[in-house]
């Protein structure tokens, strides 16, 4: 509802509470997490009065979560870095001894070092970034530098979601798609997903429930969103793929699939070569032009499967002109999933979900998809130019994120979920799972990862891309990894986001090679953003025989005094989100909505009171000093005066830059147009965001919608306006599998374990397999699954121990199922030892009902090192909180005959930090407090002690005095 339109007369007597003449409001973008809501900040004397959601903003429509509302305490955190720092000469790394230096000294020192690397061996620079949202810029910077050793934290985060979607649908969960919240009638949430789209999901769940839709939550833990689910499915961790495939089994066994959708928009009718044990087995039958073939039922002949108006067979086995047996993808698919191993009775044993429930859920989604079909009556034109008078909608939608992703079978599990959606025809239709621009892209996006490097030379393509076969791997002629993190090697051939979690381990081991400099931006790899924290801290301190650190030079840019900063050789202090210019670009991780193409900016609302510079500014500055071609003018001087000018002037392709709004000389063009020097002003006038509303006829079926596909090409999202065909069956994966089987014409692995991994896990159709850690340990000893999640009020906001938020949560516990724990003699509040194959920790237990019996869990990243983040040594975060990270190794448990292999998804390299299995034993009497404990981090030079009492206010309060007659009458009317 709105507030009072007319202020009641009595209220006119009230005092003026707010000194409005001293206040200004500014629009910018929140950065308390990865959700990127629009905010309006009221500032009074360079002090924040109030941060509220921007009513008009496409992401949050005025609302804001617990994190966003706590921005003030982030801004006033005592842990903010004040100026550049250098590790004191002669002091040990990690001892916390720093000296203050000027920006000139810092940047001169860094430029000299980087220049030498760039002139000699550019791969000796590794540049990895954490919770940033500026990968378009950091990636461009690395490309211009000429090192392939760049990635953001996606490999540690949720690359499985992105990769699974992009290799099947051309869009994905994460930020690439959304449930159609306004129309969906049945919503399934798979695993913990509080990480991205924080407010949009909350807004959406309320809409769903208001509209009478059903909300099913599949999650071993019932907190957060699961709390309001109509049905909670406490599944055993790491088995979601099996649950999805069992539902596929039910749908197929009853023919509850959308055949029209499958024939028109997927590769279901394509023909697969069936010559087991021979080269070429499992590849798509193609004509001389490489076009996939189908069998036309009317012509009774092989036809180009991408043509319009063919009548392809969905099922059947045929003989190709060259005599090879072939069968349709759908034939292979149905045969696979009708197998009894996927029957609900068998899935129940694996997932811990009753067979009847699996079957019922499958029938429920089928009912909603096919019996509660909706339409949006808008004329649209399909890819072949045929007009349709409506969009058909199957109002079942799904979302999944980290809970599915962070397992070593997560890529295939996410594909299994997408398969389920596709069989029902719920992709980008009304009520279904909609794509957000610049997605969908072609399957997979046609970018290949860079391999070659040369001194003083930019890379020819970006460091990250999408391999479609072994020939795209980033390996040398002997099959050895070329990237430091071993992404795109046989360890993880489709590591589309890199493998940040392997960087420190590999650099210290010198495997595949040693490096000179590691730059980390906004990544707390010495603490919670790493596996195996304690050993990573030791590795950062490790020296070679020459007395030199194994990682010789460690540069950290962060805004706060994190555990990572403590290990830096050079600290470059960043601004807070309220003090910087920034872009949330379509070239990066955009904020589009299904109905609108959007991007946004950050514009400073406060003057920094410290000697800090935003990392964006520093990168543009360094790029000029190092004379990167894209940043250097014809006169050999830096081309851009700073980040602002870089953003408005730089073009990726003619007319396409970081910001899509108000392009063209006068700002009259959207999406594409020449640079506009006044673009920032336009964004400022428009509330710091740009929203291009898609015409109604382009809002659905974008993958096959001519008008949309042409728009996407014009806007530079896709290289062509050809339709996007969903690949239920992935030929790219099959090529890798053939390489494992020794049947590929191209690079093939030589080590047995690689052959085995490719053969077993690179199934062209989604599969379930037991997570890899579990395959190598004694499950009778490590009986529990151990998972973690961030609390909703802190997800992705972990770059400050916020004085308000920590009052809500400052100690994490190990949560156990009550009856299971009591049977083990473990009471609420008890201290226990938790042991994995990698180590042990001592933690305090809380018992609850809402957790699957074989699962224990905790809130992640609450545990902190005392002294970091402005916290006292005895803060609960340090004294009683803990990290589960100590238990998780970045390597799989050793196995005889196998080399060290990353504890990751074998396909994408996604860190498998939810695969953890543990053993729990009560601590001895008197054993209390969390263990291991760490030294207290020393204060930085010039840092003031954290205040004990905080009394933030932007102005003196105006008290409302009770009138004397009210006192005398005691309020009697």
């Amino acid at each position, binding site marked *: *509802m709105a*507030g009072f339109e007319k*202020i*009641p007369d*009595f*209220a006119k007597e*009230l005092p003026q509470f707010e000194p409005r003449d001293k206040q200004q409001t500014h629009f910018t973008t929140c950065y308390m997490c990865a959700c990127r809501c629009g905010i309006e900040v009221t500032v009074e004397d360079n002090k924040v009065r*109030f941060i*509220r959601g921007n*009513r008009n903003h496409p992401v949050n429509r005025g*609302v804001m979560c*617990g*994190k966003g*509302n706590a921005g003030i305490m982030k801004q006033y955190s005592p842990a903010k870095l004040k100026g550049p720092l250098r590790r004191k000469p002669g002091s040990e790394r990690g001892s916390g001894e720093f000296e203050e230096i000027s920006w000139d000294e810092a940047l001169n020192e860094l430029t000299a070092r980087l220049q030498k690397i760039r002139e000699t061996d550019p791969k000796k620079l590794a540049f990895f970034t954490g919770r940033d949202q500026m990968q378009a810029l950091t990636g461009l910077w690395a490309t211009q530098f000429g090192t392939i050793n760049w990635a953001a934290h996606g490999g540690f985060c949720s690359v499985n979601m992105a990769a699974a979607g992009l290799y099947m649908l051309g869009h994905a969960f994460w930020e690439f798609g959304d449930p159609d919240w306004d129309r969906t009638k*049945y919503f399934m949430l798979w695993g913990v997903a509080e990480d991205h789209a*924080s407010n949009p999901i*909350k*807004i959406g*769940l*309320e809409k769903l429930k208001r509209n009478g839709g059903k909300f099913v939550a599949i999650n071993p833990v019932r907190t*957060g969103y699961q*709390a*309001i689910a*109509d049905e909670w499915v*406490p599944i055993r961790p790491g088995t979601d793929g099996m649950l999805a495939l069992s539902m596929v089994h039910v749908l197929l066994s009853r*023919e509850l699939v959308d*055949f029209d959708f499958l*024939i*028109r928009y997927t590769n279901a009718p394509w023909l697969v070569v069936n010559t087991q044990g021979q080269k070429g087995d499992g590849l798509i039958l193609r004509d001389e032009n490489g076009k996939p073939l189908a069998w036309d039922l009317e012509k009774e002949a092989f036809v180009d499967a991408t*043509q*319009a*108006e063919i009548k392809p067979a*969905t099922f059947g086995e045929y003989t190709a002109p060259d005599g090879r047996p072939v069968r349709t993808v759908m034939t292979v698919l149905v045969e696979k999933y*009708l197998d009894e191993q996927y029957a609900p009775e068998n899935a129940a044993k694996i997932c811990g979900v009753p067979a009847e429930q699996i079957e019922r859920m499958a*029938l*429920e989604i089928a*009912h909603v998809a*096919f*019996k509660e079909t909706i339409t949006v009556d808008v004329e649209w034109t399909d890819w072949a130019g045929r007009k349709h008078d409506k969009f058909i909608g199957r109002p079942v939608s799904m979302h999944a994120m980290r809970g599915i992703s962070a397992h070593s079978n997560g890529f295939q599990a996410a594909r299994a979920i997408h398969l389920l959606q596709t069989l029902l025809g719920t992709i980008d239709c009304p009520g279904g799972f909609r794509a957000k621009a610049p997605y969908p892209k072609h399957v997979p996006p046609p970018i290949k990862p860079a391999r070659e490097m040369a001194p003083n030379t930019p890379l020819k393509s970006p460091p990250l891309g999408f391999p479609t076969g072994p020939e795209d791997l980033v390996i040398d002629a002997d099959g050895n990894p070329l990237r430091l993190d071993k992404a795109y090697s046989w360890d993880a051939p489709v590591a589309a986001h890199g493998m940040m979690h392997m960087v420190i381990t590999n650099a210290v081991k010198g495997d595949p090679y040693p490096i000179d400099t590691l730059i980390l931006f906004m990544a707390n790899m010495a603490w919670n953003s790493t596996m195996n924290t304690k050993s990573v801290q030791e590795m950062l301190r490790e020296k070679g025989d020459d007395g030199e650190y194994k990682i010789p030079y460690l540069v950290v840019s962060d805004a706060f005094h994190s555990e990572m900063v403590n290990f830096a050789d050079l600290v470059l202090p960043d601004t807070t989100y309220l003090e910087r210019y920034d872009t949330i670009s379509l070239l990066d991780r955009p904020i589009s909505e299904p109905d609108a193409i959007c991007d946004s900016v950050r514009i400073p609302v406060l003057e920094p009171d410290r000697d800090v510079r935003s990392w964006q500014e520093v990168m543009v500055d360094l790029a000029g000093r190092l004379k990167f071609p894209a940043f250097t003018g014809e006169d050999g001087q830096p081309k851009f005066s700073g980040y602002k000018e870089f953003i408005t002037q730089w073009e990726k392709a003619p007319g396409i830059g970081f910001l899509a709004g108000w392009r063209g000389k006068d700002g009259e063009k959207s999406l594409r147009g020449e640079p506009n020097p006044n673009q920032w002003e336009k964004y400022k006038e428009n509330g710091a965001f740009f929203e291009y509303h898609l015409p109604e006829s382009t809002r659905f079926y974008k993958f096959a919608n001519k008008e949309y596909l042409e728009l996407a090409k014009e806007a530079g999202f896709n290289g062509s306006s050809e339709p996007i065909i969903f690949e239920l069956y992935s030929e790219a994966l099959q090529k890798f599998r053939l390489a494992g089987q020794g049947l590929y014409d191209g690079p093939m692995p030589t080590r047995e374990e690689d052959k085995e991994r490719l053969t077993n896990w690179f199934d062209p159709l989604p599969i379930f397999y037991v997570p890899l850690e579990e395959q190598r340990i004694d499950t009778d000893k490590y009986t529990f699954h151990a998972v973690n999640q961030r609390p909703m*009020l802190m997800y992705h906001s972990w770059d400050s121990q916020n*004085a*308000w938020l920590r*009052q809500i949560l*400052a100690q994490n516990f190990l949560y156990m*199922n009550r009856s299971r724990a009591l049977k083990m003699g473990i009471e609420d509040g008890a201290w226990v030892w938790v042991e994995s194959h990698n180590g042990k920790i001592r933690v305090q237990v809380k018992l609850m009902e*809402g957790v699957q019996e074989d699962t224990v869990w905790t809130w992640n990243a609450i545990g902190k090192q005392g002294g970091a983040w*402005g916290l*006292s040594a005895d*803060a609960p975060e340090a004294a009683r909180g803990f990290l589960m990270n100590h238990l998780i190794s970045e390597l799989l448990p050793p196995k005889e005959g196998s080399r060290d292999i990353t504890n990751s998804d074998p396909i994408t390299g996604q860190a498998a930090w939810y695969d953890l299995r543990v053993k729990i034993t009560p601590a001895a009497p008197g054993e209390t407090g969390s263990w291991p404990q760490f030294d207290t981090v020393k204060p930085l030079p010039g840092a003031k002690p*954290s205040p*004990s*009492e905080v*009394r*933030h206010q932007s102005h003196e*309060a105006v*008290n*409302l005095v*009770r009138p004397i007659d*009210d006192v005398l009458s005691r*309020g009697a009317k």
Partner: protein
Amino acid sequence: MKLGLVIDLDVCVGCHGCAVACKQWNTSGTTGPLTDTDAYGAEPSGVWFNRIRSYEVGDYPHNKTVHFPMSCMHCEDAACVTVCPTGASWKRQEDGIVLVDQDKCMGCNLCSWACPYGARELDPASGTMKKCTLCIDRIYDERLPVEERQPACVLTCPAHARHFGDFDDPESDVSRLTRERSGYALMPEMGYKPTNKYLPPRQKRTVDTSDVARGGVRDKLKAWVNRVVAR
């Protein structure tokens, strides 16, 4: 007028948005600042007008998790006002908002003992009692756009679980929601007639599957017939 809140327990996911928005607005509001003590130390604590209590109902696997935001109920017959020895606590006749006059409060804590809802918080720095003001410093502010003349907690709630309005007006959102969704007051047996109402979870939706459950068909592939569909 009888101003108050309706809180929808069917959709509250426990994000603490309302609690922190309240803290944020009110620390610079009419009874601010809302002091925080030991802010970076061993026992962080502070003054909050709105807190989310979370608990579980039922036993595994039939358990439910409930997030329950609690703030001042602005009772019609407020015990905190009755017991106040200095006359600092009062219920406004015009709109029913219960307030504490900071100039008159001596921090004796009587009101906090009297309130069964735990809505009152003593500010250790000012030595005075503080509580939800229903954002009286926002809702009547003509300089704010109409849609923002609402309590900070209501404006911010991502799940739109919070509604503000006049319970004396039967056509207001809060009256209508209370009527339609069987809104209830917390602990009415105490007799303080709380103004705020909570909406219970909606009936679970059941999905009829009789029209798709063509039981037991396990025909294998060979029986499947190709349909002729033009691509």
